[in-house]
């Protein structure tokens, strides 16, 4: 009875299985290799496109971080600036600094005569040059009466030419610089009076119609205020909602409906939230247009579902044994959540929130609806000042034809990407910091 019932069946089967497996083996290995190749190809394609994108953006945007300056001898003539000699700030502020710039340029090119050539000569430096002189004199009135070599911001056309983006072989009428201007630039370059400095204007100014004076400070501050409002609203509300729905709410039809709706909200196109914000916050509640407060409110609506969903997922991932342990000790439900479940779910919640915030940072469509697309020169100082945000600034600049704006668009994209990476880095850092071993 201990013998196998079919004595000649067993060895046959063993031999068969060996052959069967061996014949299939090559096919299986080939399938595996093929799959690995598909994976490799997909990843390298992805990486190639990312590299291409970065190379393109950085290649275009990098020159924008450097700005051309022209060295001009300026004599701070007391008769022009302060005829009464009282050093009154009002007098100093309203003096004719443009005349100083013109005089300085004529000093460099004394042979230039005539109204048109002189105007062309003045056009070599930015209109901001006279304001720069004004700022210097108001800050330090002792400059009056002295002669200084001053680096003045060059105009956008000069900057573009110096960066090699204007073809001098073109017909004169087809390029922004006239023949005589190119000649002067050549002379200035030969005399080492043209230099490229770090473009601090980009980080200090708000928007401007003159590319050399346009900066992203206004958009950065707008983004900062908007995101602050978004975070302060959506994080506490989102976490509280997730905790309530996951831990306290009874499981019935109402909570089911709420859950389905939250999931649907996360998939609603963001421009719809912009329309909602326009209708509710601006038209109904009468909040100001273009304000970071309203932008933050709208982005909160958009971010909330993401935070709630991430929060609930993080809460469900806390093992039930921890809940039982806390309840078994006589902890109340709120103590169980507050002392144990929430701290353990925090890394997941923070990650979800920061990803939601990063999405809000890159959002432009809903903000167009509430007027944050306006041309705003002043840097916003609070939540109600008119403002724009980085992605909208990029959108605005990308519309402009000047070469200098094209490179500034790429520079602004680089700044935006840097912020995104910063936020994602923060998410990873916080996750590591709060993560606990089980």
């Amino acid at each position, binding site marked *: 009875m201990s013998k196998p019932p079919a004595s000649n069946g067993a060895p046959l089967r063993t031999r068969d299985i060996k052959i069967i497996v061996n014949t299939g083996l090559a096919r299986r290995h080939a399938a595996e290799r093929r799959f690995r190749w598909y994976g490799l190809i997909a990843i390298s394609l992805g990486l190639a496109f990312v590299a291409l994108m970065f190379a393109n953006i950085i290649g275009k945007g990098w020159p924008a971080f450097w700005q051309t300056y022209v060295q001009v001898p300026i004599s701070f003539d007391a008769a022009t600036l302060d005829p009464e000699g009282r050093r009154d700030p009002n007098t100093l502020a309203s003096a004719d600094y443009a005349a100083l710039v013109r005089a300085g340029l004529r000093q460099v090119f004394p042979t230039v005569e005539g109204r048109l050539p002189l105007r062309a000569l003045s056009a070599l430096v930015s209109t901001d040059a006279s304001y720069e002189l004004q700022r210097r004199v108001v800050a330090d009135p002792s400059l009056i009466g002295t002669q200084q070599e001053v680096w003045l911001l060059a105009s956008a056309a000069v900057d573009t030419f110096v960066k090699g983006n204007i073809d001098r072989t073109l017909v004169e009428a087809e390029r922004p610089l006239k023949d005589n201007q190119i000649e002067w630039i050549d002379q200035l370059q030969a005399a080492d009076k043209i230099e490229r400095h770090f473009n601090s204007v980009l980080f200090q100014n708000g928007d401007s119609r003159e590319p050399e004076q346009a900066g992203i400070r206004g958009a950065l501050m707008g983004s900062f205020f908007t995101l602050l409002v978004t975070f302060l609203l959506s994080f506490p509300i989102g976490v509280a909602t997730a905790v309530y729905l996951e831990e306290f709410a009874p499981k019935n039809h109402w909570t089911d409906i709420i859950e389905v709706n939250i999931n649907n909200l996360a998939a609603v196109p963001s421009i719809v939230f912009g329309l909602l914000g326009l209708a509710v916050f601006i038209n109904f509640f009468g909040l100001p247009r273009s304000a970071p407060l309203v932008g933050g409110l709208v982005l909160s609506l958009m971010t909330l579902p993401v935070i709630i969903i991430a929060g609930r997922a993080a809460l469900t991932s806390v*093992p039930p044994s921890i809940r039982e342990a806390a309840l078994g000790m006589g902890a109340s439900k709120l103590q169980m959540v507050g002392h144990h479940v929430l701290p353990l779910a925090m890394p997941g919640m923070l990650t979800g929130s920061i990803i939601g915030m990063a999405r809000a940072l890159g959002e432009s469509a809903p903000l167009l609806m509430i007027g944050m697309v306006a041309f705003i020169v002043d840097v916003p100082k609070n939540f109600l000042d008119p403002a724009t945000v980085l992605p909208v600034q990029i959108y605005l600049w990308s519309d402009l034809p000047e070469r200098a704006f094209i490179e500034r668009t790429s520079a602004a994209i680089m700044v935006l990407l840097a912020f995104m990476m910063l936020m994602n880095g923060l998410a990873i850092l916080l996750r590591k910091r709060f993560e606990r071993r089980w």
Partner: protein
Amino acid sequence: MSTPALETQVALNGALNRRAPRPQSASVQVTDYDNRQTVGKLTVDNPKMACRDVNVYYGQKHAIKNVSLDIGANEVIAFIGPSGCGKSTFIRCLNRMNDTIPTARITGLIKLDDDDIHAKEIDVVQLRARVGMVFQKPNPFPKSIYENVAYGPRIHGMVNTKAELDDLVRESLERAGLIKEVEKRMLEPGTSLSGGQQQRLCIARAIAVNPEVILMDEPCSALDPIATAKIEELIDELRENYTIVIVTHSMQQAARVSQRTAYFHLGDLIEIGDTDQIFTNPRHKLTEDYITGRFG
């Protein structure tokens, strides 16, 4: 016609069963498998907890059927029975842990001393402070050893000063027989301990709030024999001050640590009585079948 392998198996079973005395089948009074009336004496002279006609439903499923029994003060009572017999469900009724399951419904009377634990004036927080629980899988909080033990006294406001709390933590760890092992590493995470140590930490955590009853739901099922022996020793010591209810899969363990044993079968309490009597002289055929290893 037994094969050598089978003989080894029998020998192994014999070794395992050695400590549980063999029953004498002659004394079985109830031989009808369908008779689910509880056999044995369910009352005691000085009950700590009393359960009468307890029924538990999970939705449509009738998980505990008309169970009545007393839990005596300062005794260790063991609940045994095959998987799915409802012993864990029943033990979780005693501190209302089943409240956390939305579909669970409980009827009948459960008293702790003279208080109905389902009465309105008994808060579940108070009940769980009086009836502590140790779970099947060691589940220390992901905090330091000190914080694990200090948690209960802290949330219940049992101590006023840090020094008092320190003393209480030390004392609890001492009573759980863990102090020597963790004295030097009180601030390390509780999860860094071995499985057996973690379970003793959970016991220390439970006794830190000085409960009247400690419920243990298969406390040794995830532990090796040496850790199990330590826990069993501890249970024996704790009996002086606490009433202990233990659910176990191991009949040997029930025989070793308990004074009374209750045998559950598919939601019915089949038999209850002194541990010695249950293991030597079961009165119900189902009990006999289970403890002789015929099923389960």
